[in-house]
């Protein structure tokens, strides 16, 4: 995977920069390969349904929710399964095949533990009141990434 620029911070574009081969624009450097819209929509719907089903709520900061949904979509695109984006793995493909960390992961299913802060039990400090998140919300809060 080739990543050409930081995703967390914005850079000025220098005239000395050679755009990466994959770039479709001469003067724009893509910060990160984005997950496909289709996968984002699938994971968005899944997240809403699962929050309802499990009686959990999204974070007060929907940015967190959005980033995780995109992370799930990204793994779904790359690995075929929505591997938890808030973990480091030795071998992502193996983990996706094994399934423990595929969303909804075993800790979530068994104990409603979601360290991604995607599904929060009502007693959690960061839990909001909503079990919905729109595609617009996702796009807006991840626009700078």
């Amino acid at each position, binding site marked *: *995977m080739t*990543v*050409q*620029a*930081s*995703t*967390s*911070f914005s*850079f*000025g574009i*220098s005239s*000395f*920069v*050679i755009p*990466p081969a994959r770039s479709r624009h001469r003067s724009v*450097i893509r910060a*990160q390969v984005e997950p496909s819209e289709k996968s984002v929509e699938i994971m968005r719907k899944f997240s809403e349904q699962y929050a309802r089903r499990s009686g959990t709520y999204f*974070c007060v*900061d929907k*940015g*967190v*929710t*959005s*980033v*995780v949904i*995109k*992370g*799930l979509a*990204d793994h779904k695109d790359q690995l075929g399964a929505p591997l938890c*984006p*808030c*973990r*480091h793995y*030795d071998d992502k493909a193996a983990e996706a095949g094994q399934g423990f960390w595929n969303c909804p992961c075993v800790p979530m299913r068994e104990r409603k533990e979601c*360290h*991604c*802060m*995607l599904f929060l039990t009502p007693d959690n400090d*960061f839990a909001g009141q909503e079990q919905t998140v729109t595609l617009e919300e996702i796009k807006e809060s991840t626009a700078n*990434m």
Partner: protein
Amino acid sequence: MAVSVSTSSIPSLNSDRSNRFATSAISSSSPGLRLSSYSSSLLFPLRIGTGGLSSSSRRKRILPVKAKKQTFSSFDDLLAKSDKPVLVDFYATWCGPCQFMVPILNEVSASLNDKIQVVKIDTEKYPSIANKYNIEALPTFIIFKDAKPFDRFEGAMTAAQLIQRIEDALKIKQ
């Protein structure tokens, strides 16, 4: 693979565009450094983003980023050269809590500026460093003192909680 780091006040390790310039600069001047993905000398040079045009920069390209510019040859080098304890944030791009911590780390770094240096490592770009420290959940924070892990904790928290945790760890040192 060169590492360039730029943030407002926090250096982070990720492979951005400037890596290639750094790589070409390095390969001509430091033939001993090899592109290895599993060694302590894998990073070159690790540059912490600059406050603009740095007169000491020997590189031609200019990235208008803010923060102090430093060059390291590896993560171990960064730890060794630091005169302060180092808080390392192991993160990933699409990890929600990690992104949640970005402004909090900025705030903490500013208020504890003299006491600790904050560094961020993208575990997807530097899996070997993440493996070395057995990182699993993200974000994981490790406070390094004298280049060795001293305290370690996971998950997002408020700025107050993070400052408290850091100060508790630093207190013991003194």
